[in-house]
């Protein structure tokens, strides 16, 4: 018989909630292994904290999403959203699965090129593209998604000067009945800005309008909004066909599908309210199929899904530094990872599981990070079994936006490991060192010598 776990005593008030024959339990089971590799061995080998990605889960996600869309619409192309996670190994998993690249800055663009993505399969989005960026994209025949009129004018000038016809799309924003309405990117549909831009492009004849792009928001819990958006995009495409006899090759519905994380302030858990990808697929594909395109002129559906394809494939492993009691009596646990590497904890209540067996009692706890900053709170309130210093925890759904948004504020960034299909871990990014940090620093000559007395 296994040795019983010792847990320090806890005091908790009795509250009259719904009767439950199982008593009050923690919602979570311990997570001791990820893809068959034990959390303890990972931490032992690569240090704590540690980002872990599951290749199996990533591939499963993209294949599931592809299948979901491709069995509803004949022409579908996914483009991996680099900003969601642009570690090269991660990108290449998606590229291997047939995804193109969607980038929003020059360095992401160059990363995609270095990853071997052909130029014409890199979608160049974003409001900030310099003249030089545009020239490079034109040379590589990348589709450029125009965000504003100033970019349109500049691009027209550059195209005239380079004597080529770059492939472009315009980004369109619109009212899809949701709040907040994203109107800061692209041209508005309802006010006619989008048509204004389309007219300018097609009248000038300097640019090759191949696509239309929209991205109605992020973490969208209402699939029907995508149906509205797809219908409006199809309307634009058909209007362009009617007015200019130009066939729009693709409609890019952007991203924004929710992952199973729980947003702060949400009454229910993410896993209970987030619609499955099939519901997004259903409304988008139905809207496009029924829009009235000719069979031979059906536009390809581009999807720039990031979050929903990777969030559940990423885990953050960490360790308990200390426990303490706050002045109001609440329990607090200090972990070795903070908001500097888990930036998403500003808007998510991340699911966190202990990495070892525990008893049946839980206690409301505040989880703090290791930073010497008041803002470093991972969870304001979480019900966890008593954790001891040195215990490990696993943070779930940390695949999206964590690695790309992490910074070395106070603490350096941890290593990133990917567990392959055979259950073998590979370091895909080494732990940051002081040398990395100071690599680009320079010391003026007059500051090099000093004597501190």
């Amino acid at each position, binding site marked *: 018989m296994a040795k019983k776990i010792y847990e320090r005593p806890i005091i908790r008030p009795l509250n009259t909630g719904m009767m439950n024959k199982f008593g009050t339990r923690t919602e979570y089971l311990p997570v001791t292994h990820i893809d068959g590799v034990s959390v303890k061995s990972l931490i032992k080998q690569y240090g704590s904290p540690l980002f872990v990605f599951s290749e199996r889960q990533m591939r499963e996600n993209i*294949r599931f999403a592809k299948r979901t869309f491709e069995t509803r619409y004949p022409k579908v192309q996914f483009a991996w959203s680099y900003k969601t996670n642009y570690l090269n190994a991660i990108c290449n998993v998606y590229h291997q699965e047939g995804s193109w690249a969607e980038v929003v800055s020059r360095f992401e663009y160059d990363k995609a090129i270095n990853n071997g993505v052909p130029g014409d399969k890199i979608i160049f989005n974003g409001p900030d593209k310099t003249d030089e960026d545009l020239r490079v994209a034109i040379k590589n025949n990348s589709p450029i998604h125009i965000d504003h009129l100033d970019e349109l004018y500049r691009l027209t000038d550059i195209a005239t000067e380079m004597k080529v016809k770059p492939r472009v799309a315009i980004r369109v924003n619109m009212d899809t009945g949701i709040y907040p309405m994203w109107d800061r990117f692209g041209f508005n549909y309802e006010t006619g800005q989008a048509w204004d831009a389309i007219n300018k492009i097609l009248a000038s004849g300097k640019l090759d309008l191949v696509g239309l792009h929209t991205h109605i928001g992020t973490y969208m819990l209402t699939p029907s909004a995508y149906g509205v958006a797809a219908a409006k995009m199809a309307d634009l495409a058909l209007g362009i066909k009617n007015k200019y006899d130009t066939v729009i090759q693709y409609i890019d519905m952007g991203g924004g599908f929710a992952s199973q994380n729980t947003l702060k302030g949400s009454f229910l858990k993410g896993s209970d309210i987030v619609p499955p990808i099939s519901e997004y697929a259903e409304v988008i594909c139905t809207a496009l199929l029924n829009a009235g395109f000719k069979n031979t002129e059906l536009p*390809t559906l581009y999807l720039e899904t990031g979050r929903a394809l990777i969030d559940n494939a990423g885990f953050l492993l960490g360790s308990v530094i200390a426990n303490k009691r706050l002045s109001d009596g609440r329990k607090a646990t200090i972990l070795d990872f903070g908001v500097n590497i888990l930036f998403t904890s500003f808007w998510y209540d991340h699911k966190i599981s202990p990495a070892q067996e525990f008893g049946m009692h839980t206690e409301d706890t505040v989880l703090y990070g290791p930073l010497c900053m008041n803002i470093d709170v991972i969870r304001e309130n979480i019900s966890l079994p008593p954790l001891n210093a040195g215990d490990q925890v696993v943070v779930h759904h940390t695949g999206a936006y964590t690695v790309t948004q992490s910074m070395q504020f106070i603490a350096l960034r941890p290593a990133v490991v990917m567990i392959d299909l055979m259950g073998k871990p590979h370091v895909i990014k080494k732990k940051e060192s002081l040398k990395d940090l100071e690599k680009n620093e320079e010391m003026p000559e007059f500051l090099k010598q000093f004597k501190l007395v």
Partner: protein
Amino acid sequence: MFAVAKNVIYHLKGIVLSYSQIYFSNNIWLGIALMIISFFDPGIGLSGIIAIVTCQLSCLFFNFNISSIYDGAYTYNALLLGLAMGSFYQMSLPFLTVLVITSMLTFFLTVWIAGRLSKIGLPYLSLPFLLAIWVILLGLSNFTGIKLVSKETFSLQLWFPNLFINVTKLIDSTSFSDYLHLYFRSLSAVIFQYNDLAGIIIAFCLLLRSRMAFALSIYGFSIGYLFYYNFEGDFTPLIYSYIGFNFILAAIALGGFFIVPSAKSHFLLLFVIPVTALVLSALHTVFGHLHLPLYSLPYTIVVLLVVGVLQIRQFSNGLELVNLQQYSPELNHYKTLYLKKRFAGQTYFHIYLPIIGEWTISQGHLGNITHKEGWKYAWDFDVRDEMNATYKAPGTDVKDYYCYDLPVIAPSSGYVIAIKDGIEDNLISDVNLVQNWGNTVIIKHADGLYTKLSHLKPDSIKVKEGDWIHAGEQIATCGSSGRSPEPHLHFQVQANPYIGSQTLYYPIAYYLVKLNNAYSFHNFSIPQEGQIVRNIIPSSLLLNAFSLIPGRNIVWNIIDGAKNKENKWSVYVDIYNKKYLYCHTTKSSAYFVNDGVLFYFTDFYGTKKSFLYQFYISFHKVILGCYKGIEINDWLMPQVFFNKLPMLFQDFLAPFYHFLDGNYNFKFGAVDNYMNPEKIIFETNCNGRVFNKNVKKIDSKMSIDKSGISIVEIQNKNKKTTATCVY
């Protein structure tokens, strides 16, 4: 002026072709040779031509379809009549009067008999001639005023006796002299010559024109000869007017002209020729009393009998009637075989898969769950993940199944004629055996061709009874109603419009099969259980490049070795609604079909030196959907690769064995992107093969961009042809 000259040329051609028609050919040179031979006796030759011209003028005067005299079809019976009369009588005014009148009679008989017999798909052979000559022979005897002088001997023989005697002596010196005399004289007797020299020349011309016809003439004659010889038949009728040619004509007609030459057609002659011999003998007995010659009557009767009987078979295997007459046993053989290889499995009406994206055939034809007995030709579809699971855990609800609620599309265009809706989806593993088909839509594509889609989700049917729906239009979503333990789609083709009708064996026109992450192309076949299948979505770039709409012109700038030339092509449609590319420069035509998924050539007429011919070979079959790694294969006729000498041997052997053949392979080369391609290069390899070994090669490449076909490169041996599409 020009039009008149053109007409005269057509008429002259018609005269010459009348001669070759007698030997089942439409070759001008054979016609000219026979015409010259007929002038061995100028009287015979002249009356033959007078008869043809009379016919042609009758045709013009009475406004008959003029095209039938251009190929000699309406005039060869009159020619026979002219030749016959020329061989009987001296030239005189009464003779000419009778000749002109009876030629017109022959023409009328030809038109009438041709019209009647063509309705039942039979040839008229020399029936008009036979009727006319009997009318003359029986009818003239009462007109004492018409004095026709019978001829004794044959003119050329009088002038150059040695020539004929020496030839006869030469044959006498061989060991089979009896046989050879009879063969050559019979061969010449077809055009009323009855001498060895003419026979030898005709045999040689026949060999040049068609190896198969030549071989058949010897084969057929030998069977007849041996039959007579072995069973001690009376050779008198055979020798008297050399009507042994009936064996020769029957052999050519049934061994290679009306029937595609094959081992079976040769086998058939073992039966047909003895029958001809019996018929000949029987008729000789009857007609002898009437003092009427038999001429070609026995063979005409036998051919009409055999062709007529073979037409009413349900299916044919190896003994095929010729559909489109090529006037050459060789062409009949190669073209039929090649068309059969290429298109035998094709269905006129195309049925596609009723799904979007990749689905798995969970139960195929003759499946061991429910596709049995009368319902054995059906397919079940579902969607699977990489682990071959049809659902995402836990799989206890229909919604966990990947295929549940996915769109189901019309497999082809047609009317919705029956709908069943309102049956609930089953719990997983449960089946509804009362309403076993579940929610169902039946589409009528044609009379006797229906498709049925079953187990649909309740209330998901988007069409109404009577709706016309297009191929690919969504009709419902996949559900789990009826006898369906888990969500799947049942699809079958049937001959009746009812829910519950039995299935019909009908192939899927075009689809792709995915295996090990690579697609393979399948046409007119049956998707098998366990295969992952998908429809082919044509690429708009390829559709645009191959959208050859009638009236469209294409101009090519061709660099052929060091030469530079320009060819202009146009797209036309013929009276049978077939599209073809016509090259104005070389006056050649290439027939093609574009069915939205494939573009392929079907036939070519014109000069093999033209660029159109090279194009016809090099891009014989092109797929219009752009998928990585797919290949298509096709066949080419051996004539494409091999010249006359090897083909000579192949022609003799062809009915029994092919050691020469040609194949064709198509694959995609550089494609900028397979999703929305803007630049496609594809490559084709054509191989001429000897005993299945590649010996001749044509490698070609075509580049396609937004404006259509841009550049074509063809490498044939050391010769490289590069053509640029100018517009």
